């Protein structure tokens, strides 16, 4: 069959130009046998603990290639080090796009780093897919149609808490403690999204703290004296631990919802006192490898099999490997959906039409879904409760 591509390839062969170059006008970064994908990650420097995400993604694409690739094309995944420094992200991204001619950028890491290249990639119409940050601004199709996030944003998470409160505790007097910055303000916005018109009547008190404040004792007391019986805490680990302890010290027993960034057993619950946090709630979207309920889970078995074969020396307790497995899986899904049209426009179009993808490592019912107006792929989470020793999932999956 004579298609436009075979014609182009014919011309390329005739003029002795590598096929990749000739195709570049049509589908940059794509040849008959390969698709090139670019990524920046902190392989060195203070944030290098996250570098293993790219390691996991490279291993995942290796697995895909071992299985024959996607539509006959192998994935050439190239991850460059930016040291978590935005000027280097700009240089490395330009290198990948202009010199290595990647088709698109995938899962670049860091809010500041990815902000630094967002304008450039959008101007060049190069997809900036599934960036690795929780900032809500990476899902803004109106202003940045070539940029899409992946992580559930703080705003999405807070919207889920808002919905939970309206459904389960409609008579609660809600109080919010939030950090006075973008992170905390995203939470307030999310609560308003989730509670809708109930926000004005249910939320009786909002108090903030500065990230430099030594304690939040007075904020806790002011929430208690306002008659609050359901607290949402949007705080980083140190303040989160203080808040748990202060609530216990005040002999106050509100329903307590804690931001998902501050639910680490080691960093928050042990310092606060695990018994003081009993009954505390938060939301989750991924299966926890240490949770005994997933010992025989087929999805987690698939992940463990992958880890054993491709990353045998890796630490299974490092959640970043599960993260990279799921992001790369999402990417492979989009490429399969693209079929033979791997133009940048179609990659972006397919990324914006994922209909309910269940990742093996995600909680049952937490689906990855996008649309031309929804550039936040993960908008569902499930509530879980601290029982003094472990987090226990309960209730339905809630979609923001």
């Amino acid at each position, binding site marked *: 069959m004579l298609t436009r591509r075979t014609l182009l390839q014919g011309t390329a062969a005739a003029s002795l130009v590598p096929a990749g170059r000739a195709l570049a006008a049509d589908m940059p970064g794509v040849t008959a046998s390969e698709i090139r994908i670019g990524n920046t990650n902190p392989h060195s420097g203070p944030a290098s603990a996250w570098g293993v995400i790219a390691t996991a993604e490279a291993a995942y694409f290796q697995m895909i290639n071992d299985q024959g690739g996607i539509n006959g094309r192998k994935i050439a995944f190239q*991850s460059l080090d930016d040291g978590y420094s935005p000027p280097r992200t700009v240089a490395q991204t330009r290198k990948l796009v202009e010199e290595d001619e990647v088709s698109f950028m995938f899962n670049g890491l*860091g809010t*500041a*780093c990815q*902000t*630094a290249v967002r304008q450039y990639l959008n101007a060049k119409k190069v997809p900036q897919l599934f960036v690795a940050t929780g900032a809500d601004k990476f899902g803004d199709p109106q202003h940045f149609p070539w940029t899409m996030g992946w992580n559930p944003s703080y705003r999405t998470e807070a919207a889920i808490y808002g919905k939970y409160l309206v459904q389960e505790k409609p008579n609660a007097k809600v109080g919010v403690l939030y950090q006075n910055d973008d992170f905390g303000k995203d939470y307030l916005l999310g609560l308003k999204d989730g509670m809708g018109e109930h926000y004005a009547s249910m939320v009786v008190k909002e108090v903030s703290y500065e990230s430099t404040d030594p304690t939040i004792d007075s904020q806790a007391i002011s929430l208690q004296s306002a008659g609050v019986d359901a607290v949402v805490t949007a705080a980083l680990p140190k303040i989160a631990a203080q808040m748990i302890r202060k609530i216990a010290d005040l002999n106050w027993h509100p329903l307590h919802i804690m931001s998902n960034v501050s639910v680490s057993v080691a960093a928050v619950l042990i310092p606060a006192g695990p018994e003081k946090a009993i009954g505390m709630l938060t939301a989750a979207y991924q299966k926890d490898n240490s949770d005994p309920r997933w010992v025989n889970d087929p999805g987690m078995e698939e992940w463990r099999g992958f880890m054993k074969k491709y990353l045998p020396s890796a630490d299974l307790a490092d959640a970043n490997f599960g993260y990279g497995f799921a992001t790369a899986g999402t990417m492979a899904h989009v490429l399969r959906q693209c079929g033979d049209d791997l133009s940048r426009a179609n990659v972006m179009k397919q990324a914006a039409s994922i209909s309910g993808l269940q990742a093996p490592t995600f909680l049952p019912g937490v689906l990855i879904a996008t649309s031309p107006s929804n550039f936040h792929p993960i908008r569902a989470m499930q509530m879980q409760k601290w029982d003094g020793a472990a987090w226990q999932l309960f209730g339905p999956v809630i979609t923001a």
Partner: protein
Amino acid sequence: MSRLAAVGVAVLLIAPAFVLSGYHLFQTTMLAVYALAILGLDLVTGTTGQVSLGHGAFYAIGAYVTAILMASFNWPYWATLPVAGAVCAALGFAIGLPALRLRGPYLALVTLALAAAVPQILRAKALETWTGGAQGIVLSGPEVPALLPLSADQFLYLFVLAIAALLFLAAHLLLRGRIRRAMAAIRDHPLAAEAAGIDVAAIKTRAFAISALFTGIAGSLGALVVQFVAPDSFEVMLSIALFVGLVVGGTGSLPGAVAGAGFVLFVPNLSELVSKSAPGVVYGVLLVAALFVMPSGAAGALRRLVASRRRARPDTA
């Protein structure tokens, strides 16, 4: 002959704008920016002997002055450069004051503290209206004047090159005069310098001010090239990288600053090519190797090479 050489150098410097494209031109522009920053550090550390591990702070402040004036006050890009230079010069003068009492490692620590403090200050809540907090500020790049048939990358390179050339010339003139001997005397023997009637306090504080001005303008140009500033861009490692560039390039030399900038810019990427899992180790090995092969930096190696050639062919000297 020297006029011909000058024309040759000018052609060599301008050529990249028309030979290189995209990414390579961007990297060459950053090379000029870092060379200017290292030149600034050289004035105070190389020439005057006052070790600074905090020049990343001046670079950051220069970048933020430009970013804030452009984003919050709608200034044209070119008008922000003198302000960035002036702000950094004033700050450099102030940092020069403790340098009057502190020596060697103590001064180095004070400047290191400055480098550690600046990113935190840039994140501070009180300044967020202007600095954008941890999110930083996105800038739109300089517009190419309508009359010039240049791409944005080409124009940016030539603009940075012009400013850098101007400042390199200024440094060259400065380092030719009496003040250089005074600075060197302070570096080599401060007591003797004072005994010889040199106003040590005045020279030290002025050296710091001029040095900060150079590095600050480099930061300002860097912001225009990268078109984004955030605290993460100016962590302590930037100051260390500038210091490494100065030592590897060789102190007291203008071409040395360019060589040092090359090390800062390209060696991390080179290390990554060698080993993705431990680029830091490769970087360290390359750094030690560079210092072993060129103990007085690239500039020193070049000087020795030229000297030995002259000895070999005395008639051409």
